[in-house]
């Protein structure tokens, strides 16, 4: 009892109440995130309607292979995250550390591939406001496409980087045996966040890369 009590902050009565509060808090935070990305997706929708042809053209400049690889990488990271939560709940220390570390590694791999893609855009003069030359028609619409591309993927990458930072802390704590069957809330809550960032990408991938496939 005394050991459990130490894990419950003074404002809560029970561990279950604390866990419920933390989980609800994260869900509400994710609701704000939906609206945050929603603002950009609203802008995307408006210009996708008014500049549809230009968007279809511009999306051809994307490296669909790298985007596809990244989608697979991120989905796999969600799997390892789910396994990490499961391991932490079961109190299996080594396994949870391994799974958290794999999640981080896959997240970092995603960012690395994204970096390669960004470098390609710089090389191809497709960075609005810095170096943008569009040879084809609808230069204006293509520019808006690339602005939204950098905004959406940039904010997504920022979220992913924050997620990696959070999981780094969790990994260190898991290694010290902080999580057990009685207390694994931080891993669970971080898992919610990680899956959210993954789901955002599941929307971004078709919106950015697959326009040409629809046409």
């Amino acid at each position, binding site marked *: 009892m005394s050991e459990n009590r130490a894990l419950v*902050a003074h404002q809560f009565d029970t561990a279950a109440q604390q866990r419920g*509060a933390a989980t609800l808090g994260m869900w509400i935070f994710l609701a704000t995130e939906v609206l945050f990305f929603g*603002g950009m997706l609203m802008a995307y929708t408006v210009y996708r309607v008014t500049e549809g042809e230009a968007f279809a053209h511009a999306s051809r400049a994307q490296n669909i292979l790298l985007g596809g690889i990244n989608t697979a990488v991120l989905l796999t990271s969600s799997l390892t995250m789910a396994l990490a939560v499961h391991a932490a709940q079961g109190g299996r220390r080594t396994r949870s550390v391994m799974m958290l570390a794999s999640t981080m590694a896959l997240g970092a791999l995603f960012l690395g591939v994204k970096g390669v893609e960004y470098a390609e855009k710089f090389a191809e003069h497709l960075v609005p406001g810095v170096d943008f030359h569009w040879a084809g028609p609808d230069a*204006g619409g293509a520019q808006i496409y690339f602005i939204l591309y950098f905004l959406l993927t940039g904010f997504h990458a920022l979220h992913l980087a924050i997620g990696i930072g959070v999981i780094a802390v969790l990994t260190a704590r898991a290694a010290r045996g902080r999580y057990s069957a009685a207390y694994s809330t931080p891993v669970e809550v971080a898992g919610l966040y990680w899956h959210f960032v993954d789901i955002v990408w599941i929307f971004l991938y078709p919106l950015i890369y697959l326009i040409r496939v629809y046409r």
Partner: protein
Amino acid sequence: MSPHSITTHDHYLNAGYGPRSWLLTTDHKRIAILYMLSITFFFFVGGFFAFLMRLELLTPNGDLVSAETYNKLFSMHGITMVWFFLIPSIPSVLGNFLVPMMVGARDVAFPRLNLLSWYIYVVGGLFTLGAMIFGGVDTGWTFYTPFSSTYAHSNVIPVVIGIFILGFSSILTALNFIVTIHTMRAPGLTWFRLPLFIWAMYATSIILVLATPVLAITLAMLGVERIFGVGIFDPALGGDPLLFQHLFWFYSHPAVYIMILPAMGVVSELITCFARKKVFGYRFMAYSLLAIASVGFLVWGHHMFVSGQSAYAGMVFSALSFIVAVPSAVKVFNWAATLYKGTIAYHTPVLYGFGFIGLFTIGGLTGLFLATLALDVHVHDTYFVIAHFHYIMVGGAVMGYLGGIHYWWPKMTGRMYPEGWAKFAALVLFVGFNLTFFPQFILGYLGMPRRYHVYPPEFQVLNVLSTAGATILGIGYLIPFIYLIWSLRHGKNAGPNPWRSTGLEWRTPSPPPVHNFDEIPVVTTEPYTYVAEEEQRE
């Protein structure tokens, strides 16, 4: 110690002294006090800008400030008052202090996050303040593109960053309240036993968490357009300025309800306590708060009737704006019905409550004028709009805030404010407010546009009236500022429950102990059981 020393028990104010005990506190009550000090500072900063504007408008010519300076004054007045005073006012001060106490909890769900939200507020505030001191901003608080993104030469980016930062503070506070209300209610405290202030905080928090991120991303896109010179909103660069307005008002209209719903919650507490009656139509009062919060998300287009959105969109937004008046009217009628045949004790808080009901009604009804498509074309961008929203934001939100501060002052400090002075100040504020803003309805109807530092000479009489009123209003704000500070040392001992209120927050000593309750209360009845209490007394 003074002869009126009350501090015999251990409470949150004498639990520790010195800057560390305040700056590193996670006690929601101390964080509320930190917020109170900071928003009061920004209130007087914003008031100073307003004072200079009213001084300039004494005469038809531009004799005090240039057009450019005037543009900066109204922009910085709006930005300061909206984001650094009104939005955090009742939630962050009274809400922080009261939400845990009213639900019978020891603290909010995430106390460290709560402190973090204050630090974020301070960083955002200082950032914006710095940008204002070193050059200012002249876009209006609405940051309309393409002026803000392409043409303005003022400190748009730093101010926008300040507001972006501040948004996180709003979100964290609201998140804390929602989780606290959901998961930390005392035993027996079911949803329909919650005080209406809690319902109001809940509805407000929902708006804060859903609307604020849209403002954040909109300002971020504005920043990208301005820094990189690429078109998102600027039509000359291929963007769409209406998109900016839609996104901006998607936040900023609900933001009006962020300001008024908390005041409605406060006023519900005041009216029922001082009428010694159960609030009339409790469930309808709770539902109407939620209805305003949700319908309030669907009316933003009424700010854009003349900016080129489709006429059909205009009609829909007009109709929805009329619908939001229904739950608002339900509240006004229910307050009136609560007062009807009540045993009204005319203390200062309820005077602010009366002021709120009257002024909010005027502000709300003139809102219907503006929601009417044809009439809006006539009064759009005139002083009619200015008068309308000041009746809501000052007549409504500030009156509610001050009423709440007076009502809960004994709980927060353990001291009574001086009743005579407080009644006098409430009267001065009411007179000063109406003298300031009622002439602006007429000015607007006659066609005086907002945001100009010069005007035709025939408008001078009404402008002089308005400036005279603003002076009275300014004095009205200084009086409570002085006597509330005075009362900290010389006020009478309040005792745990000077108003004989039935709320949970009054069932603990004043000031409350660090963990609010010596023993977590068990709730067995609905709120506001004043009639039962009176019968018991007899």
